[in-house]
């Protein structure tokens, strides 16, 4: 139609639907790979850590990749999930899942309040507000020594066996049963990833993408962008809270660094390294970051120098991240040329 005005219509690329179908269900594939791989990988602790931070990075990606919001305070919810779970376990010794539920309720309720304030603004002002709230929560927990242990950290978090009514209990304490703890974490993480996937392909997830592309146009279509972004912020806080809860169970000890701005920066790096806006990219980014940290720190203390260099190369030459570039490459093999 309008092309007739041009002398030569440029050839255009069209994505094959087969590729779209493969790309739509990456979590199930990921779950199987992770479930089998652990049997041959010797570093069970590293693998568990990878799951926890993979989930954390994917929760962050809901904001940066799908809503287009850059939060510099996402560790707030990771840390609150960890502290909430740990304190409830310490005080009342409930079922593990009940303690985790307490952690994620604390994280998401805080996300609701913080998100409401931060979403009054956009772009760099939003980012600065998330950072400011992160600092405030950090210092509240720092000051509340009697409860949180302050900068000494919270020690001696008990991890009871995982009770399944009528069936029995499974010991999941991480140090003595690394494999069963790994599978416990894997089940929780995969359940969260499936939920995140579900949310992102839902009408709500699509609206989120529309807002990222043009908030003005999305509002003119009838989307209440503030409400939708706030819901996304709460979801991101909730899943970060689950990751934090798993972190607390894993180490049996948590420090204030779980909600420091350094941790908030690390999750930005992980997500960008793997590729924001893709479903499993941030998970891959977290894996690369942690494996790098594990191996390079064996040889040198200044491993962050190398991590930084890799990050720079990544942002300059692969702005879509490792996963984003890889799928882009695979996709181009599935693409047909249309004249």
């Amino acid at each position, binding site marked *: 139609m*309008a092309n007739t*005005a041009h002398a030569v219509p440029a050839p255009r690329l069209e994505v094959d639907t087969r590729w779209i179908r493969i790309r739509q269900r990456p979590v199930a594939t990921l779950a199987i790979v992770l479930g089998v791989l652990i049997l041959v990988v010797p570093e069970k602790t590293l693998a568990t850590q990878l799951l926890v931070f993979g989930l954390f990075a994917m929760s962050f990606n809901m904001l940066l990749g799908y809503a287009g919001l850059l939060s510099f305070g996402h560790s707030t919810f990771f840390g609150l999930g960890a502290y909430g779970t740990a304190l409830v376990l310490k005080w009342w010794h409930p079922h593990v899942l009940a303690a985790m539920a307490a952690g994620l309720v604390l994280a998401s309720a805080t996300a609701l309040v913080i998100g409401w304030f931060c979403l009054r603004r956009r772009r760099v002002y939003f980012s600065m507000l998330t950072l400011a709230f992160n600092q405030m929560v950090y210092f509240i927990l720092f000051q509340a020594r009697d409860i949180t242990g302050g900068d000494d950290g919270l020690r001696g978090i008990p991890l009871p066996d995982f009770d399944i009514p009528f069936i029995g209990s499974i010991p999941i304490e991480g140090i003595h049963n690394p494999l069963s703890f790994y599978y416990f974490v894997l089940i929780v993480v995969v359940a969260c990833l499936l939920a995140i996937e579900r949310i992102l*392909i839902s009408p709500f997830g699509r609206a989120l993408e529309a807002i990222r592309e*043009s908030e003005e*146009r999305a509002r003119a*279509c*009838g989307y*209440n962008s503030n409400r939708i972004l706030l819901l996304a912020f709460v979801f991101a806080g909730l899943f970060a809270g689950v990751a934090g809860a798993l972190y607390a169970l894993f180490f049996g000890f948590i420090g204030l660094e779980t909600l420091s701005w350094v941790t908030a920066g690390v999750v930005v790096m992980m997500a960008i390294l793997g590729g924001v806006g893709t479903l499993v990219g941030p998970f891959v980014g977290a894996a690369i970051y942690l494996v790098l940290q594990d191996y390079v720190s064996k040889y040198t203390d200044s491993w962050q120098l190398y991590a930084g260099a890799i990050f720079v190369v990544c942002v300059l030459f692969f702005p879509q991240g490792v996963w984003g570039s890889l799928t882009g490459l695979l996709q181009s093999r599935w693409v047909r040329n249309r004249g």
Partner: protein
Amino acid sequence: MAEPILQTERVVRYYGGVRALNGVDLQIQPGVLHAVIGPNGAGKSTLFHVITGRVPATSGRIWFRGLDITRRSQPVIAQLGIARSYQITTVFPKLTVHENVRVAAQARVSHANFWQPASALRTVSERADHVLDMVGLKDQRRLIAGELSHGEQRHLDIAIALASDPSVLLLDEPTAGMSPLETEQMMYLIRDLGRQLSVVLVEHKMHVVMGVSDRITVLHFGSVLTEGTPEEVQSNRRVQEVYLEGSI
């Protein structure tokens, strides 16, 4: 005459100290293609902003189907059934053409549904296909919106507005930046739309305005100069003077 579907009553809008709209009275009859014309700075775009709730009116009232929408927010007004296109193309550039229209069609159906795949909303997807067919972008449905030609993007901009099945469509200079051939195609589309719903058209190209409109309102410095049929407006002395001033 029938009850107007959209009506503004002495609408005033200031930008800082500048009066962009100076008490505009406008009545849009249902099913009518109503053009709003006037020299640059007459307040046409501001009028659209105020009607759609993009910026609030400083004073005055706006009625839609007998409902006072003056203080309603932009999303609420869109939900009620007023849609607009943009003078500067505003689409969702990284989404596919189909998804651009589908997500717009979804807005009035599903607000915060996060437990169902978006593809499960069949009627929404069908609506998107139907609208793409209307504007002639059926074959481009799987392309990325940002890669379309300028003319195609202008059509997509209108398709997004149409997607939610509005009762009033505000078109803000739909032929902006278009070649004569593209303009002609757009004219067919506008005429087509005018038969299906109430359309308010802001347009600079006079042959387009005269070719498609049922009624014309002339704005000048934020006030209504005159209103009438294309013939009446064309023969109006004051309109001729205003446009003569503007062309120098």
